[in-house]
């Protein structure tokens, strides 16, 4: 998803030596937690087959703790393994989870939605300077061109609400916010043009539902879009059904989305799904001063109200 304008931006490589510190600390902490039976399983990252790649792993035996690591390839939001959708992982007992700042916001959201109690999970927070964006060959260094768009505007480098924070943050480069520019461009467009843009994007959607399956907040037992009677959203991956599906998804995540942008990363058709969630987040911040935070909140913006909410749009 890179393009020509980026060449103009001078190349900056981010020092990720801090990640090795994190890897060592995660390993020792995981070993301790497992040997002392504090947790029954640790959800973390381990090296994949391809050199430099990282995949989620659920280890139960302390000896396997040596396999855990943290690198720019650790892009997954591991909080998805703590929701009701992945009953088999929860069945393993008390869990510890490795979490970047954006992942921790998702964990906080899930606690707020009674998916698990905060004390049931040990959170190993990682000070993260950024991870790869989609389509990057594993093992490439972390530079301004390989870093994910969300990391360019990250405000949660240090997950301070975690039980333990590992790793060391390097000096962070000031990268121009690409996604914000894109949002501004879209906002500047006329509605008709924006419609063309999104129609084009959603026409390509093949309804593989990867965006739903990696989203920590899409843990419904039966998704509205899988229902037949009534068929609120057409199930066949044609443009009209896709449009409905993505509008419903964005609306269901409004006020819950943690901004981990996994949906955009995993989309095999490169549809910029995070723009939708970001627009919802911006509106909720402006309207109700709500921002997804590290601390669980009892009620989200759309499950609470205030007598003095804005109603300028209502006649």
């Amino acid at each position: 998803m890179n393009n020509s304008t980026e060449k103009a931006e001078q190349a900056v490589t981010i020092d990720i030596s801090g990640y090795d510190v994190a890897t060592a600390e995660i390993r020792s902490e995981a070993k301790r937690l497992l040997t002392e039976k504090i947790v029954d399983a640790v959800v973390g990252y381990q090296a994949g087959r391809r050199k430099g790649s990282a995949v989620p792993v659920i280890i139960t035996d302390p000896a396997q703790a040596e396999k855990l690591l943290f690198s720019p390839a650790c892009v997954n939001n591991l909080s998805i393994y703590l929701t009701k959708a992945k009953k088999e992982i929860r069945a393993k007992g008390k869990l510890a989870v490795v979490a970047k700042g954006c992942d921790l916001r998702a964990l906080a959201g899930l606690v707020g939605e009674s998916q698990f109690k905060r004390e049931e999970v040990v959170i190993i927070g990682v000070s993260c300077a950024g991870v790869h964006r989609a389509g990057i060959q594993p093992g490439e260094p972390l530079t301004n061109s390989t870093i994910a768009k969300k990391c360019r505007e990250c405000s949660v480098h240090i997950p301070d609400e975690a039980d333990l924070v590992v790793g060391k943050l390097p000096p962070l480069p000031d990268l121009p916010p690409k996604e914000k520019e894109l949002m501004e461009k879209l906002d500047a467009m006329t509605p008709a043009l924006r419609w063309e843009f999104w129609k084009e994007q959603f026409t390509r959607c093949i309804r593989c539902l990867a965006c739903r399956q990696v989203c920590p907040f899409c843990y419904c037992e039966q998704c509205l879009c899988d229902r037949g009677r009534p068929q609120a959203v057409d199930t066949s991956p044609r443009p009209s059904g896709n449009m409905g599906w993505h509008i419903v998804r964005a609306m269901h995540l409004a006020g819950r989305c943690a901004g981990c942008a996994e949906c955009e990363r995993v989309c095999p058709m490169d549809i910029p799904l995070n723009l939708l969630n970001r627009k919802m987040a911006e509106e909720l911040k402006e309207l109700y001063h709500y921002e997804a935070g590290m601390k669980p909140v009892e009620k989200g913006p759309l499950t609470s109200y205030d007598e003095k909410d804005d109603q300028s749009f209502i006649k």
Partner: protein
Amino acid sequence: MSRIGVFICHCGENISRTVDVEQVAQAARQMTGVAYACDYKYMCSDPGQTLLKKAVAEHKLEGIVVAACSPRMHEKTFRNAAQAAGLNPFLCEMANIREHCSWVHDDRAEATTKATDIVRMLVERVRKNKKLVPITVPVTKRALVIGGGIAGIQAALDIADCGHQVVLVEREPSIGGHMAMLSETFPTLDCSQCIMTPRMVDVINHPRITLHTYSEIECVDGYIGNFSITIKKKARSVDMAKCTGCGVCMEKCPQKKIPNEFDKNLGFRPAIYVPFPQAVPNTPVIDREHCTKFINGKCGVCQKVCGPGAVDYEQQDQLVVEQVGAIVVATGFKLYDITEKPKGSAIKGYGEFGHGKIPDVIDGLTFERLASASGPTGGKIVRPSDGKEPKQVVFVQCVGSRAREKGISYCSKVCCMYTAKHTMLYKHKVHDGQAYVFFMDARTPGKSYDEFWRRAIEEEEAVYVRGMVSRVYQKGDKVVVMGSDIAVGVQVEIEADLVVLATAIQPRDGADTLAQKLGISYDKYNFYSEAHAKLRPVECATAGIYLAGACQGPKDIPDTVAQASAAAAKVMTLFSKDQLEREPIVARVNEKFCVGCLACKKVCAYGAVEEKEIRDRQGNLIRVVAYVNPGLCSGCGTCQATCPSKSVELDGYTDEQVMAMLDTL
């Protein structure tokens, strides 16, 4: 559902004038699932309904659409007709082709097309309707009344007289509340003890009233028809069964000089005491803070002198649980205390009146105790400082009330009347005394109220000065009242012997904590909020809880008694049936698909959603899901619109029904 009957009404010619009803009937016959369609001049008439019932039988109809007026008019009528014909009433819907069509459009073709569209929409809806059976919630026919003032007593007596059990809980050692403190009551000046004591005796003697005095509400669980109330009975240190009320212990008690709260600390009482002579129950209570036995273990005189041996120092607080079906809250009021800083007020009490430090500046209830025959002075009006008879008394109205900067902007409704009464009582007791009243305007709206007020001025010669009081200060043994007389436009200074402040009426202390226990809402002054200011003044929004008396807002005794009887009537309607029947338009959770995110619980304004644990046979927890309590759910549907996976469904307005209607666009 494939056998639907469509009945199109002419409504005389209100509909048929602009809608071609035959054409609509004709179109209806073509619609999928419609087995029979006809039009008739007056569907809601008796012949109309008979036609409907016959058609149901003859054509074995499974669903009905009546295209006529607004459902808000005759939905009940036609649903009853459907039920009479053996059909579940909720399989009958109304298509509003009068208010929403024939009356508001003049082009006949347009109106007919629209009417057909509306009928088609409702036919599609009925095809997705499900049989619904009214929710029945068992009702414990026992009522709880909180507060033993005149409001609580009246409500308790009304309910008990109607044959139901009542549990009356009173915080003080005796029932009677503030009315028992009053001397004579306006506008008839009859002595309050004389009219109230019989009622209090009725309460104690009533077979169906269980009385818990010197007790407080510990916690409230459950919902309408099924409340479980935990009451904390504070230890009286006297066994009520044995005590005969002879009063010997009170005479012999060495502690004599404890200020009696009932007499506004004018009179004194012993450590083992009864608040006032006509107390009900007439069993004394030991004030453990001031009783030497409890302070340093010495004394114990009362136990020795007690014949029946009723005194028991070991008695402990007790928790009692009562099952009730309805709750009447009658916790009454307290008077604004000029030394306190009211909630939400920028400044502390009334510094300009010396913050209550001047002994001869008293409030209305203290004057009542002075004037009361059973009061500390036997009805003689005296100055608290030196006991002399005051020759000049100044009454000040609206102290705290209607004063925004003191945090109380409402009018307390009763002070104008009782102040006029006070001037009369004073005149009757001190013939050569002169009463002055500083007031803004007199509010005397009740029956024969204004005449009573005029009498105070014309016959009892009270001097009413229209103006506010700016300062009260002690000058020698006199109390100087500086105010203004705006009628004449001058500053006025009166050197009075006694000043009586008509302070504002506020809810009892702890009103907000009790509200939180009951789950009812209250306003910024802590008065309890009624469900609807005009149409449901004695009910709370929370089903099964009713309000009576000053706890809902300042009011006088006639209004309080009326409200108490109204609340009792509401309780009796609730108890009139064994099962509480409620419209089945309530939400149900599909426990298979609910993932327990509890968003529905967060948006439910009625607290109708609870957490329900699903356990396997061995009892270990599988998961937590939401559960809608049909007794509390009022059917607004906000939960379904909030639930992402629509695992909670509002019967009568399911997604399937709505989508079916939208498919006809």
